[in-house]
């Protein structure tokens, strides 16, 4: 695993130094890549580890973002309270939506899709509370007592630190007995049941943890964006989170961030030239599924193992 470790260290080093040489445009884009990479990572706990394809992660992301925005803007809460409450709210919603693990396959996809639309509908239609189309504006930079984020660069380091801490915790989680059990369930549910595992309970907990990570991403997002509107809860956000994971490589930690980087850079570049940049994303996705189903991380692994003849 040495090459992967080297790649990780190189990327972290670049991330740390970026504000020193990169323009504000790139610093902002990098922040966005990290935040959406974290959201993508949250979907990969279900997809890459447990084998469940969720299409409702924008719901947790948006609920925590809305909670923070409403508490800070309308009720004068500080970051120290608003951020944890936001994460709690998103995770609590995941507790409810986790009931989807009673289903599998296409039914799981459809029920999570429906869950996602409920939250988007509420954000969009309950205008008196959520601000409707306009959302909630005027979210300040976060501050903790005398520690204040005063610039994009300051916040960049906040995002980087949170993402690194969550990714490190995630790494421990997926190597733990719990994470191993999720991969076992992905491989053979019936075998895991006969080994003594309550498969439903494991998947339920995985779903809630996944919602927790999505909620953390939501909090980072609202302070980055400084406002939140129903777009945050929309279907494309949920889909893109999963696409980023697939393009980068499922079942890896670096993959979702690489996928996020590719999709967001492409969008920024392509939207300058084409009106239909989503078509470009479509092509990227098709190419990935047809020729690199294991994503970029899969390509790297294949390139490294050369012609050992191991399947993807």
């Amino acid at each position: 695993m040495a090459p992967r470790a080297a790649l990780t260290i190189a990327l972290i080093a670049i991330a740390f130094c970026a504000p020193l040489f990169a323009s504000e445009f790139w610093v902002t884009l990098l922040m966005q890549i990290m935040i959406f990479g974290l959201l993508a990572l949250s979907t990969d706990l279900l997809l890459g580890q447990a084998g469940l394809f969720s299409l409702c992660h924008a719901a947790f992301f948006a609920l925590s973002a809305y909670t923070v925005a409403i508490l800070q803007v309308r009720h004068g809460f500080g970051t120290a309270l608003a951020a944890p409450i936001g994460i709690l709210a998103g995770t609590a919603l995941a507790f409810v939506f986790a009931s989807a693990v009673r289903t599998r396959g296409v039914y799981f996809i459809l029920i999570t899709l429906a869950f996602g639309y409920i939250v988007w509908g509420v954000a969009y239609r309950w205008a008196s509370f959520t601000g409707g189309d306009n959302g909630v504006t005027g979210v300040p930079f976060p501050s903790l007592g005398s520690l204040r984020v005063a610039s994009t660069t300051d916040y960049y380091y906040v995002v980087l630190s949170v993402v690194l801490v969550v990714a490190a915790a995630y790494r421990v989680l997926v190597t733990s007995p719990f994470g191993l059990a999720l991969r076992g369930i992905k491989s053979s549910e019936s075998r895991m049941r006969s080994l003594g595992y309550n498969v439903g309970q494991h998947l339920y907990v995985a779903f809630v943890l996944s919602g927790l990570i999505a909620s953390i991403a939501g909090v980072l997002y609202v302070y980055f964006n400084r406002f939140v509107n129903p777009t945050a809860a929309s279907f494309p956000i949920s889909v893109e989170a999963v696409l980023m994971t697939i393009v980068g490589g499922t079942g890896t930690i670096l993959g979702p961030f690489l996928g996020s980087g590719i999709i967001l850079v492409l969008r920024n570049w392509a939207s300058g030239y084409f009106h239909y940049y989503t078509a470009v994303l479509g092509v990227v996705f098709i190419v990935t599924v047809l020729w690199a189903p294991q994503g970029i991380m899969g390509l790297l692994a294949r390139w490294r193992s050369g012609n050992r003849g191991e399947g993807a």
Partner: protein
Amino acid sequence: MSGAPAIAVERLAKVFGGLRAVDDVSLSVEAGERRVLIGPNGAGKTTLFHCIAGTQQATHGSVWMFGTNITTLAEHRRTGLGMGRTFQISNVCTDLTVMENLTLAMLGTDRRKWVMYKSARVFAGLRDRGSAELSRVGLQGRADETVKFLSYGERRQLELALALASNPKVVLLDEPCAGLSPSERQRFSGLIRELPRDITLVMIEHDIDIALALADRVTVLHRGNIIFEGTPGKVQTNAQVREVYFGRV
């Protein structure tokens, strides 16, 4: 509960629509006994087996393990009570390594399966115990191989190791030798024969020679009913068994 049979099935029936796959079957397997279920295709062996294992639930009747009623108990809870099983078609986690499979098996009945804050590799003694389990089934040295690169025979061996890893009191073997070559069958049935005598075995086996060599007692099923139960010596001489089983097939 001492003295209670390891597995007791009382007046069990399993109905699929209009088909009575198992029709009023009662049997009792003593602790430490090796019981083989045989019978022609469609006799209800697999359905009965699934009702004991918990993969399916009986329509009528009850299943008991060491005096505990397990009729409606979920499969994973039966494992917690000391049941282990193998599958007819190898069912192991093919994306994981041999040792990862075994780790899952060893932790399946252990609260530590919920640990999230440290790597599964650092649990004291787990790997040593896993290596011992692998040697028992002849898979020593294969610990770090991904299961999808194992041969079918090796997967059968791993399957047995998984069933034994939680130190079960009762092991259900669903056609353990299915899909193996004749020489592999010999070796594999040898593995089963060498298992500690305090483990109760209930198995389905189509290979009559292997079945009779392993069994203490044989139960013959036909059309959902038990038509004979007795020692391997007597089963071969029973007229009814000869007619429905050895006569046709």
